[in-house]
């Protein structure tokens, strides 16, 4: 922090673009530095005894790509979470067994999240996986179907038994299904994005390395300055993951059609509290109950209606289209949304945080350049097929 302040003082006299550095004040530098370091450590999930277990991760990788876990054998997790598309699908709204109402969020960096799904209707990766398995519009599975698929495949059954230390044949269907989702969660938690050009810039600022900081493109630097300053974006897109993990209403309509609305977080909390697979239930492996603190204390409020989760911005340029219903095709459309924000659409009980940013075309382009710099250059390299996993005998 001290180095950052010294660096800030040194930067002030510079004119824009001089020496390849955009002038930044101490507060701007502190805010930019707060978006790192990256990567962040992914801690073991105490609610999931398969978390971090290599055998469970291998089983989870197999199951993630296995369409036998769906009602008609055509939909796998990877159907919507496509590896080469930054683990999303490029569609406005997801298509499982039927068309869904929301955009497919990426599963990358899910191990760092607090809530899961646009509405936060699940409080763990594994309960979110169960939600997708059991939703008739997504995979339409049942405990019997999932357990049957694992028991019927000697390879999967062997991997299950090795991962959980108990025979799939001896456990009830629901428990085997939960085991399957915990394995998938253990695999998903290994999907983390790598370092970006922004991270190099951020680290250079933190250590006061002017030469290294100047390698970050000027347009991206200007965009970063807007992001933490005039744009006020970093208030919600906070920290190393560029999300505060919570829910906001940002003026995106949530009408789904005549007489039908998407309640967003309001419905998510309702779902969470009625979910027998939440962290307060019998399927959590966290005997301390500490991981369920959020579930125990979350409060449903009227303002939750129409709120959706703040998405991470890491790899954001690779995850179009945008917003909870995929209504915006490109990043420039998202920037325009906030630049020309329609305050009439903000909920009357909503928070007083958003105002139209009224960005110039140049500022908008700079903000897009900054957002594009948050992409892991290796993110698109993941193959759209089952990764090699060890067999089981």
């Amino acid at each position, binding site marked *: 922090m001290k180095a950052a302040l010294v660096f800030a003082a040194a930067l002030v006299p510079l004119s824009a673009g001089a020496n390849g550095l955009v002038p930044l004040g101490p507060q701007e530098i502190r805010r930019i530095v707060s978006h790192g370091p990256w990567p962040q450590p992914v801690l073991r999930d105490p609610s999931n005894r398969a978390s971090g277990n290599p055998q469970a991760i291998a089983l989870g990788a197999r199951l993630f790509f296995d369409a036998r876990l769906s009602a008609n054998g055509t939909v796998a997790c990877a159907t919507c979470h496509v590896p080469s598309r930054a683990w999303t699908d490029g569609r406005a709204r997801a298509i499982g067994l039927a068309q869904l109402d929301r955009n497919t969020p990426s599963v990358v960096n899910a191990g760092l999240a607090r809530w899961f799904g646009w509405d936060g209707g699940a409080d763990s990766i594994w309960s979110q996986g169960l939600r997708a398995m059991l939703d008739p519009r997504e995979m339409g599975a049942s405990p019997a179907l999932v357990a049957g698929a694992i028991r019927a495949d000697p390879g999967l059954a062997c991997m299950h038994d090795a991962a959980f230390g108990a025979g799939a044949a001896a456990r009830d269907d629901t428990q085997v299904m939960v085991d399957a989702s915990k394995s998938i969660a253990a695999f998903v938690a290994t999907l983390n994005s790598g370092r970006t050009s922004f991270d190099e810039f951020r680290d250079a600022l933190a250590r006061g390395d002017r030469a290294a900081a100047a390698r970050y493109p000027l347009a991206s630097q200007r965009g970063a300055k807007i992001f933490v300053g005039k744009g006020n974006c970093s208030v919600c897109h906070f920290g190393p993951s560029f999300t505060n993990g919570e829910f906001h209403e940002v003026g995106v309509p949530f009408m789904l059609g005549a007489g039908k609305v998407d309640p967003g977080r309001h419905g998510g909390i309702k779902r969470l509290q009625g979910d027998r697979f939440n962290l307060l239930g019998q399927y959590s492996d966290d005997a301390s109950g500490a991981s369920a603190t959020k579930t125990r204390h979350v409060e449903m409020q009227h303002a939750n209606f129409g709120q959706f989760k703040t998405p991470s911005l890491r790899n954001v340029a690779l995850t179009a289209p945008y917003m909870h219903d995929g209504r915006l095709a490109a990043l420039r459309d998202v920037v325009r949304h906030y630049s020309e924000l329609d305050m009439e659409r903000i909920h009357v009980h909503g928070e*007083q945080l958003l105002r139209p940013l009224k960005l110039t075309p140049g500022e908008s382009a700079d903000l897009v350049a900054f957002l594009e710099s948050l992409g892991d250059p290796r993110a698109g390299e993941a193959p759209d097929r089952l990764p090699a996993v060890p067999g089981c005998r």
Partner: protein
Amino acid sequence: MIAARWLVALAAAVPVLAAAQCDAPGAKIESDRIVVVYRTVPPKIAVGQHFAVEARVCAKGAGPAPTALRVDADMPAHRHGMNYRAKVSPKGEGRYVAEGLLFHMPGEWRLLFDVDGGGRTERLAANITLE
């Protein structure tokens, strides 16, 4: 040791002496009638991390003894509160523990203490800035 326990119990029972209990270490906020000394656990609040508040509530002077405490927080400039409801547990002798708080964004927060006593509720607020 037994004598010391009796002295503590006596102090808790006599409102005139109650303010002395609030000389404990911690941040102090007060009104004409009430003193609240609190500390957060962990000591440094981080955005997006749950924390607890340990508080001691005392009457000032001969005022009525506080009987209950509620803890909440808000961001007045944003016109919103927390997304979580704190659970406050009394620990005796004016001590309370509030659990489950979480500040979900940086900025200016108010930590709110609503103290019941003498047939009324008084709100004391502590300003906290998170970066």
